[in-house]
């Protein structure tokens, strides 16, 4: 009886580990697809259109790098949103 119990415990643990590995594998495949198709295609299209997502051009030495923000003064309603 003890052997059966030990076996079933080990089996459940192994099965759980297998499930986690499968989940990680499936996630990786899905995320890779999203990365290549979603992020990749959008990125390439935007590059063709000359759009930049991060300001990294080096030409502005010596000039002010402050950017207008004007944050504040919003009401309570604006803070229910996660964006």
């Amino acid at each position, binding site marked *: 009886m003890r052997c059966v119990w030990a076996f079933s415990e080990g089996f459940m643990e192994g099965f759980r580990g297998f499930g986690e590995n499968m989940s990680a594998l499936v996630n990786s495949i899905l995320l890779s697809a999203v990365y290549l198709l979603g992020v990749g295609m959008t990125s390439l299209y935007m590059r063709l259109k000359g759009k930049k997502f991060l300001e990294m051009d080096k030409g502005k030495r010596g000039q002010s790098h402050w950017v207008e*923000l004007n944050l504040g003064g919003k009401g309570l309603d604006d*803070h229910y949103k996660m964006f």
Partner: protein
Amino acid sequence: MHVLGISCYYHDSAAALIRDGELVAAAEEERFTRVKHDTSFPKNAIEYCLKEAGISASELDYVSFYEKPFVKFERVISQHMQCFPRSYKTFLKSMPSWLRQKLRIQSTIRKTGFNGDILFVEHHMSHAAGSFLMSPFEKAAILTVDGVGEWSTTTYGVGEGTSIRLMKEIRFPHSLGLLYSTITAYLGFSVNNSEYKVMGLSAYGETDPEKNRYYRMLKEVVDIADDGSFFMDMDYFKYHYADRMPSDKLCALLGGEPRSPDSELKERHKDIAAAVQIITEEAMTKMITHLYNVTKCDNLVVGGGVALNSVFNGKILGSTPFKRVWIQPAAGDAGASIGVAAYSWFTLLGHKRSSYQKTAYLGPEYSREQVKEFLDSKGISYSEFKSKDELVEKTAKLIFEDNVVGWFQGRMEWGPRALGSRSILSNPCNPKMQEILNLKVKHREKFRPFAPVVTVEDAPTYFECDMPIPEPTDYMLMVYPIKRKWRERIPAVTHVDGSGRLQTVRREQNPMYYDVIRKFGALSGIPILINTSFNIRGEPIVCKPHDAYRCMMGTGIDCLAMSDFLIFRKDNPSHMWDSESTAKD
């Protein structure tokens, strides 16, 4: 009314609770879970805050979160768009936590039992509020500088009454905090954990910018304009698309591969540390001076993780036009939990400010009965003192006799520093004490200095500090030179450049701690102690009696003064263990 502020998921998760405008409780999650810089949802810290207020989650009126998750997600996706396909690995690594946790923060908060309104405030606004709304100033200029929030890495503005307006920003990837972290990583230290070690190391390097060649090299990397704004050449960095921070180009510029942890620190490492400190101070000084010119305000508050750079903080009033400064004790992301709660209460809900944050003792405390129950249940040998005065006398005498004393009294501190509630105290006059503490107790690198604690009345005698003494010194946020004639008398707290990161204590803040310092002064002639955090390297500061006892028994701490009890390590040999083998960053 109760407002709970929460910060989590990046580093230093924390919770803070404001009741009718008063800060009732605040704590970092790491102290409860014993995982340093714990990033997880702070359920233990929340539980503590609710318990301290005597309410349940369902009785909260508002819960506020310290940033706008979707705006941050937009920035992260923008990084991947910009850096495709180099960012593939980090995309795979980071997306699961975004999809499972970070974008679902509302449902996580609901699981605590709270069903009311959840508010979201921008990250840098949370930092700004944590400093301005908790400060004594009716009006102040505000500067926030950190790694990155949603898009902002640096902002400035002005606060008046309960309103805050952040006027300008510098946007990711240009970040003073991430620059400092990149150099921290290059020098072989852990990021978001050991930046203060680089700060301490910088004093060993060449501090004259004319003579420090690494300063000239870093000026190629960072362009600092006259108004303090800065722009970084991202060819030298990889953090915007990879797990590693310095790029190969930066490594080549600085003369080699990053230093591996625990390998020997050479002169060039010290000079590089000095260079990044000089660059940071240069940018901060110019920013703050520009801020003064824009706002014409005499008061300044600073927030964000870079505000923990106490070496620079000690220079603010001397090198900029501002007359007064206040900094949130937990200026990093943990402090944003106080900021978001305060912003919600005062700014969004329109309540007036009537006081300010005068203490960092906001965590849990343990009663005499609870401590006694712990000691008795473990069969620990101890002495009991009938009066606090007797315990104070005895502690001062033990320290004078070169014992290392663990001090566990009152409410736990808020913020990264131990301030006399969960502290290790020892004799600064003993020239061997720095070595004893570094090797036997803290298991730290040899170059790291220890910090002095002094009463606010005695501070001007021993330190070249700004007068009147700024309140941030109460929270060990300012480094000042120790007056030359005292340096040889207190060698254990005098850093290589003659400075000390002092804590000043006022009697009304912590009477027992104040009295220990005074009694020690009466015995030794020097009313200064070493105050270092009560923890083993790699672990958070102790929280519970069990943590304190365990720390003592695993290190060279001689005795522990906990509530009304004194416990000697040598009296309890059966519980000893060696922490050195497990000590790590």
